[in-house]
């Protein structure tokens, strides 16, 4: 493309204007990728969910328990590999602001059902052996500086009393999509104390997690599980882990939709910023375009010249913005406790979306100036006075 040199020189004719436009685009792109990352973080649970897992909970509400007795009945169904169960323990560690997931689990089966929690074999054994042992995620360990052998004291609320757990294992999340901020301890330890202190609550299970052999059987098995307990004291509702997670974030859906929407408003703003710059530039050059046409340059030359300039600015802005997004998202995730957004990283999809939007914006912003340059006759263009 022989008009390349002119295109480059045109782009930086107004150094300040072009620089501000590029910065404007990059700030918007940072905001875009940041918002997308927050949205992604929210949906992380859904995306990380395994198609091999079903969740069975009380049909009335997630907060009502199920009897432990259901376990064996579920386990007998065709296609079920492992059944595990857990309770939401909650409690207060230090103060109410220290939030992370604390759960009572059936240790042996839970680790089988969640293979994405990687525990070294010796730590796994140590955890399984000790009644009041717990396993914590590597990110959580880092946040609170937990080490093997540390005691974590927790003031119970759902399950009142003073509780102490000994860290015997630290799990590594298998990849970035896995939550590394959970704390698990033995369900049996919880149940033992309930049996002594509040016998009415013994044998209560928060929900079951069923690992199935074949994801294709999810629908059939879910129906069979729920059929088993139809008309019983505690009816169940079984769904895939993804559907379950989706239900969880439904309550916050509006905010997320708003963020989602905002991230696309930002794209619109970029378009206006660049569109404005391109319209101003192209207008100032009306006479030059007429001169180029006089010399014999064609409409496609002018199109390449204007679109190229617009694309160059948008690509530079987007590249700078995406490049800056990494340290900014990183900084944010360092400043905010890991357990608030356990999964917080820039997804490749965000980068692709950002880059594609920049290309689209670059082209769209050039459309009006191109149309104007092509439509203006040479004679009109030569007579043009700013």
């Amino acid at each position, binding site marked *: 493309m*022989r*008009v390349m*040199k*002119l295109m480059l*020189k*045109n782009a930086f*004719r107004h150094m300040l204007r072009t620089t501000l436009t590029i910065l404007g685009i990059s700030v918007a792109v940072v905001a875009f990728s940041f918002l997308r990352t927050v949205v992604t973080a929210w949906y992380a649970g859904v995306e990380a969910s395994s198609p091999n897992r079903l969740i069975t909970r009380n049909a009335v509400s997630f907060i009502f328990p199920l009897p432990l007795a259901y376990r064996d009945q579920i386990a007998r169904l065709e296609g079920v590999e492992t059944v595990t169960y857990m309770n939401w323990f909650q409690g207060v560690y230090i103060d109410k602001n220290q939030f992370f997931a604390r759960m009572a689990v059936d240790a042996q089966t839970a680790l089988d059902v969640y293979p994405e929690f990687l525990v070294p074999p010796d730590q796994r054994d140590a955890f399984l052996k000790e009644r009041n042992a717990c396993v914590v995620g590597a990110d959580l360990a880092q946040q609170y500086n937990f080490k093997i052998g540390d005691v974590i004291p927790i003031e119970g609320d759902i399950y009142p009393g003073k509780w102490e757990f000994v860290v015997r294992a630290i799990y590594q999340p298998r990849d970035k999509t896995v939550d590394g901020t959970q704390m698990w301890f033995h369900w049996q330890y919880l149940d033992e104390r309930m049996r002594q202190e509040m016998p009415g609550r013994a044998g209560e299970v928060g929900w079951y997690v069923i690992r199935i052999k074949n994801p294709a059987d999810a629908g059939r098995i879910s129906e069979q599980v729920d059929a088993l307990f139809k008309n019983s004291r505690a009816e169940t509702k079984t769904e895939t882990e993804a559907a379950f997670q989706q239900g969880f974030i439904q309550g916050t859906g509006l905010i997320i939709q708003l963020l989602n929407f905002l991230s696309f408003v930002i794209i619109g703003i970029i378009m206006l910023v660049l569109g404005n710059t391109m319209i101003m530039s192209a207008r100032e050059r009306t*006479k*030059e375009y007429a*001169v*180029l*046409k*006089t*010399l*014999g*340059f*064609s*409409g496609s030359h002018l199109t390449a010249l204007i679109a190229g300039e617009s694309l160059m600015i948008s690509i530079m802005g987007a590249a700078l913005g995406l490049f800056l997004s990494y340290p900014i998202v990183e900084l944010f995730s360092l400043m905010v406790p890991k357990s608030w957004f356990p999964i917080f990283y820039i997804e490749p999809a965000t980068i692709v979306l950002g880059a594609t939007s920049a290309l689209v914006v670059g082209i769209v912003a050039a459309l009006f100036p191109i149309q104007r340059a092509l439509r203006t*006759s*040479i*004679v009109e263009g*030569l007579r043009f006075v700013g």
Partner: protein
Amino acid sequence: MGSLIEVRNVSKSYWRDSFEIPVLNNISLSVAEGEFLGLMGPSGSGKTTLLNLIAGIDRPDKGSIVVGGTDITDLSESQLAKWRSNHVGFIFQFYNLIPVLTAFENVELPLLLTSLSKKERRRHVETALSVVGLADRMHHYPKQLSGGQEQRVAIARAIAADPTILVADEPTGDLDKKSAEEILTLLERLNTEFKKTIVMVTHDPRAAERAHVVRHLDKGELQ
């Protein structure tokens, strides 16, 4: 010598809103090959309009314009653009150089549309700039040049692709006396030495003196 440019019964009006401004009225004119024609006339008489028609950057409402055997009123927009790049060198009153390009790059512009290699283009540009006496200003930007020098760069740009005709619209209109003399001398040289056919619009009687033939345009009619 045969005639290179044949303007036959050309009329042209401009429209402002729904109201017609007749500019040229049934004009016929022929320019011989190698001629240096001066077009004079009061402001608003249609000189620029006629020149634009001959240069193929505007179209007549009626009549035909034949240049070197080609009826340019028959050409499509893109054929016309190609024709201009091969056959016309345009010199404007206000030079109309591209400010972000150096003298060299401005002169190179019309050559970008040819199939010349980079090296050949360089030779053409250098030749054109030395013809106008600015070989030493090759890498200057327009704003680093005087008006007379800018106009010389513009002339170099007009001749770089070796066009059939040169059209100049008041090429000395914006220049002081001395620079104007230089430009006129240069045009004269292009006419005699390089055999360029030139059509020049001017207000300036001294400029008209340099032309072989002077035609007067008044109220859209040639005298």
